[in-house]
């Protein structure tokens, strides 16, 4: 059962005091079709087991392509939206589809991540405080640091000729950038911070371990925010946020904690997974890998296309009222999954949606969501991905899958790769420009 709570799981384990898990008994008989759901739109779809048993986690969703929205009986029931236009409409109607609850595994929460779990107009008050730190130009200012971290991490294993890409690179590089350059935590303690983040977000980790690390991180965040409130650091995000006002009153410590926690929970494992899925597919397709090696100018387009093809976030919304929505008879309180997997592979949205085509002219994917909750970290994530693509294709251009090692995926709302064994011809640790 612990696995079900791993995605964004740190929040769940850290703040479990008043939470009421629902749908925790996976062996229970499916509940009946609710009265408001037509039987032909009722499916048994387990958003964890059906994904983990499919050849790739995307196939777990893609089996429903071409269907109308349907209602699953699992985890207390939820709707799945199955095409790009419907998913976009859902994202763009926060008044009808609230973001108050971001997981299917539990219902009531004592705390909410800010601003992700707020709806307009509350949402905008906090989002605008954070936006200046995550603009395209803010990300660009970090370019040098991002490249230095990327190179230093590659230096640790490039001479060896093999690695587990998730454990040794994808699960460290975005985390270090964030901890060092966004949070301004002391670099001497980097391995401690990385350990906490690993235990909270990575999969699978024992629930007791995840909980202990979440509490350590929570305490550290509390101390750090208090320190920076009283002794602000020039240009530091937490210091500046601590001086902010909401509705003409000072922002509270609790609000700052709920913001900081969101950044850890939403922003780190997602870049890890974007890197891991991208290199999973590139390692399976040497001709595309070679295309990047021969023509690095294509990297921004390759990153966008792989973001589309590997769209792995399937968020949750909650209906605020009864609504007939693209053929779904939704009742107030119903939970809805606007599936970015199904949106990304919708043939009405993209020609040849199951092919990876870097030169694809139309790139309107929703890997970062859409509407008011569009991923705040998208520009930073893109730059990290582009930098990793540049460095890896330059320094280990013949990487491939290491045979004989089984690759595991995990399901739930955020799909992920557990391990990715790669090998390449060792070239020494020189950075060879």
């Amino acid at each position, binding site marked *: 059962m612990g696995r079900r709570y791993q995605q964004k799981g740190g929040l769940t384990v850290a703040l479990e005091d008043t939470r009421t898990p629902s749908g925790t008994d996976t062996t229970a008989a499916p509940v009946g079709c609710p009265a408001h759901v037509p039987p032909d739109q009722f499916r048994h779809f387990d958003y964890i087991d059906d994904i983990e048993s499919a050849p790739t986690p995307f196939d777990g969703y893609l089996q429903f392509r071409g269907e109308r929205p349907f209602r699953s009986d699992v985890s207390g029931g939820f709707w799945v939206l199955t095409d790009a236009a419907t998913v976009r409409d859902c994202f763009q109607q926060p008044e009808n589809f609230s973001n108050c609850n971001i997981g299917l595994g539990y219902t009531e929460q004592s705390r909410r991540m800010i601003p992700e779990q707020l709806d307009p107009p509350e949402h905008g008050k906090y989002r605008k405080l954070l*936006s200046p730190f995550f603009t395209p*130009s803010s990300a660009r200012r970090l370019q040098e640091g991002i490249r230095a971290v990327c190179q230093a991490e590659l230096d640790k294993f490039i001479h060896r000729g093999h690695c587990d890409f998730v454990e040794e690179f994808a699960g460290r590089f975005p985390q270090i950038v964030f901890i060092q350059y966004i949070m301004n935590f002391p670099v001497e303690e980097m391995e401690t911070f990385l350990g906490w983040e690993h235990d909270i977000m990575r999969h699978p980790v024992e629930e007791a371990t995840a909980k202990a690390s979440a509490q350590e991180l929570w305490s550290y965040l509390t101390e750090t925010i208090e320190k920076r409130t009283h002794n602000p650091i020039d240009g530091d995000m937490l210091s500046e946020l601590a001086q902010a006002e909401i509705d003409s009153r000072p922002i509270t410590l609790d609000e700052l904690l709920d913001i900081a926690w969101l950044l850890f929970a939403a922003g780190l494992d997602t870049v890890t997974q974007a890197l891991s899925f991208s290199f999973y597919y590139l390692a399976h397709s040497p001709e595309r890998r070679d295309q990047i090696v021969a023509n690095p100018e294509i990297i921004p387009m390759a990153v966008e296309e792989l973001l589309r093809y590997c769209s792995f976030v399937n968020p949750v919304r909650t209906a605020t009222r009864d609504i007939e929505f693209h053929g779904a008879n939704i009742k107030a309180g119903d939970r809805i999954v606007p599936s970015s997997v199904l949106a990304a592979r919708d043939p009405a949205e993209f020609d040849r949606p199951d092919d990876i085509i870097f030169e694809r*002219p139309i*790139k309107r994917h929703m890997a*970062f969501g859409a509407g008011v909750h569009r991923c705040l970290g998208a520009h930073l994530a893109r730059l990290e991905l582009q930098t990793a693509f540049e460095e890896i294709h330059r320094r280990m251009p013949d990487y491939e899958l290491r045979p004989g090692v089984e690759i595991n995926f995990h399901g739930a709302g955020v799909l992920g790769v557990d391990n990715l064994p790669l090998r390449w011809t060792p070239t020494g640790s020189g950075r060879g420009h």
Partner: protein
Amino acid sequence: MKVSIDPERCQGHTVCALTAPELFTIRDDDVVASVDFEDVPSTLESRARLGANSCPERAIIISE
């Protein structure tokens, strides 16, 4: 051809600026996209359509 951006719909994805940088830019405040020509030069009309089609929010409006 005229092109405009619905500021309520634009969420700053920047895909238009990536796709057709000669027409679309992200302003200094970086929050929403803007378009450099209200009246699109005829040589850039196909680029304008491409940029509009690339918007994940469908926030770019073209009128001819």
